[in-house]
């Protein structure tokens, strides 16, 4: 009780998520209690169908919990409506997906600028920030390339640039290396680690790749909709 408690960024209690209704109902999350502090690098691991992606989607405000409470920076997320959750994503959260989810036929620069467009930034500022983000992920020469012209690793780096261009407090990555080879996987994970260490961005990674999980300083195992283990490394 002597050291000040680290600031709780994410705090969930009794979180459940049920898909469908009646006899066909499937409970993906069965009561999750979890606290994540600012600046942590957390890997969420578990077998397929354990509910780890569902947990990430709920924590990332892409999906809503069925029951339970979820506080993000003290805000009761379960009480927010669609637009309020959109605004929370806009100003505080960044996402990286396994399938990249870049806009097709759209240049890397435009993809990275997109979140800034919704923030209403003037054109010149958008350009400068997007350029800086693409440079920081090592793609300063691929500004005009569309997703179809980029390799998987390059697309994921564009996606990371898009996620960090708004300087979010938390970065959610759902199987970010699932479509990448081992060399590119290491590059992407090095990038995430650097963002965590240098910029203090809280990073949550869902993965079933041990090498990826090893980058994190905390590993939460989800098993059958519940937390199986929660291990912090020194």
């Amino acid at each position, binding site marked *: 009780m002597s050291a000040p408690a680290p600031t709780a960024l994410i705090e969930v209690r009794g979180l459940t998520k049920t898909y469908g209704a009646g006899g066909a109902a499937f409970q993906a999350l069965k009561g999750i209690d979890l606290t994540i502090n600012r600046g942590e690098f957390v890997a969420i691991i578990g077998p397929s169908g354990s509910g780890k992606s569902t947990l990430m*989607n709920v924590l990332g405000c*892409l*999906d*809503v919990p069925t029951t339970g409470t979820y506080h993000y920076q003290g805000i009761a997320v379960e009480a927010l409506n*669609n*637009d309020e959750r*959109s*605004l929370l*994503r*806009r*100003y505080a*959260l960044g*996402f990286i*997906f396994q399938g990249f*989810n*870049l*806009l*097709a*036929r*759209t240049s890397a620069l*435009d993809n990275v600028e*997109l*979140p800034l*467009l*919704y*923030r*209403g930034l003037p054109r010149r500022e958008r350009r400068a920030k997007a350029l800086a983000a693409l440079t920081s992920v090592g793609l300063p020469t691929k500004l005009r390339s569309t997703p179809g012209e980029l390799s998987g690793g390059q697309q994921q780096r564009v996606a990371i640039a*898009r996620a960090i261009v*708004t300087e979010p407090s938390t970065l959610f990555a759902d199987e970010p290396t699932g479509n990448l080879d081992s060399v590119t996987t290491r590059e992407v994970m090095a990038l995430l680690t650097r963002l965590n260490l240098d910029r203090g961005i809280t990073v949550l990674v869902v993965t079933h790749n041990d090498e990826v999980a090893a980058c994190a300083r905390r590993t939460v195992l989800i098993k059958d909709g519940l937390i199986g283990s929660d291990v912090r490394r020194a």
Partner: protein
Amino acid sequence: MIWNAFAIALREIARNLTRAFLTVLGIFIGVAAIITMVTLGQGATIAVKAQISNLGSNLILLRPGVGFRSASAGVPDFSEQDAEIIGEQIAGVAAIAPVRSASMSTIYLHTARTTPVIGTTPVYFDINRWVLAAGRFFTPADLRSGGAVCVIGETVHRELFEGANPIGAKIRIGKATCEVIGLLKGKGQAGMGDQDDAIIVPLSTLQRRLAGKASSHDITQIVISGKDGMDGDAVIADITLLMRQRRNLQGNEDSNFSLFDTRQIADALGSTTQLMTTLLAAVAGVSLLVGGIGIMNIMLVSVTERTREIGIRLAIGALGGEVLLQFLVEAVTLSCIGGLLGILLALGLCAGLARLIHVPFNFNPQINVIAFLFSAAVGIVFGYAPARRAARLNPIDALRHE
């Protein structure tokens, strides 16, 4: 926010030019088709109405046989006496002209063609409201002497003389040569056939000189103009009675001649044009429908891609309303572009086709507005409705849409 949505929507259109093109094309064709068809249909109606008013408002035609068609064999024609007696005995007749018409070969210099030749009396010009473009009509003196003179219509002038001054020229008509003394001002065509394709000569000239000795001198048609304010039905009834007496028809025998007044001709032509316009509108409606289905297909085919796009936009923090506004602006922009291009094409087509088929080009703002609004509505509904559904989804469901 609105300006932002515009910027995003225009970017999106520029990025998906194929989709944009196909959407615009559907609306474009639908709008152009319906405007062209309706405008031309209305032009034709106007042309027919103008021609009917050219006929004269109280014109009565007496023809052999029954109905509008040419007399069938065995039905007797009329005599000049018939015309004289009708003129004398029937009250309400202002002027009456016997007509004998025949198709004859006509030659001027090296140009030859077959032309309808009308032999009649000078009062015919008045009854049919012909106006001179040049020269003079033939006179009663010409009629008495059977002078070798003729008055030609605009079509004949164009075909035989290729625009050169015809007055004083000699043309060969049938078996004789006539001097052109007058050129008629054109009445236009469509509906009734080409009224300007005619050579009008004194009746006696046609009977004695042009047709040859063996030919009949009978009258094939009698044109009558009624006095102002005459009761057309009463005059027709009187003439019918008189003609039945002159032909000794018994009470139970059908008349072997028929009478029409302008109103009946107008009704007959009017209902034909009406039918044509309805038909054209139906065809145009089908093309609008097909265009609409085209738009719908393009929009629905791209729903999967667009739903994922909406998922991405929502995930990075777009509000549902912002996404909808973007889609709305896209749909409205494409629909308006298609609609405006359609109107432009339709106006061009109408102007060109109206000239080609000789109907007046009548710009109808109403049909332009209706076609534009309908197509725009189709484009907007089918562009906007799927987006509306997608924008209500949880972002993760939109992202996972297959």
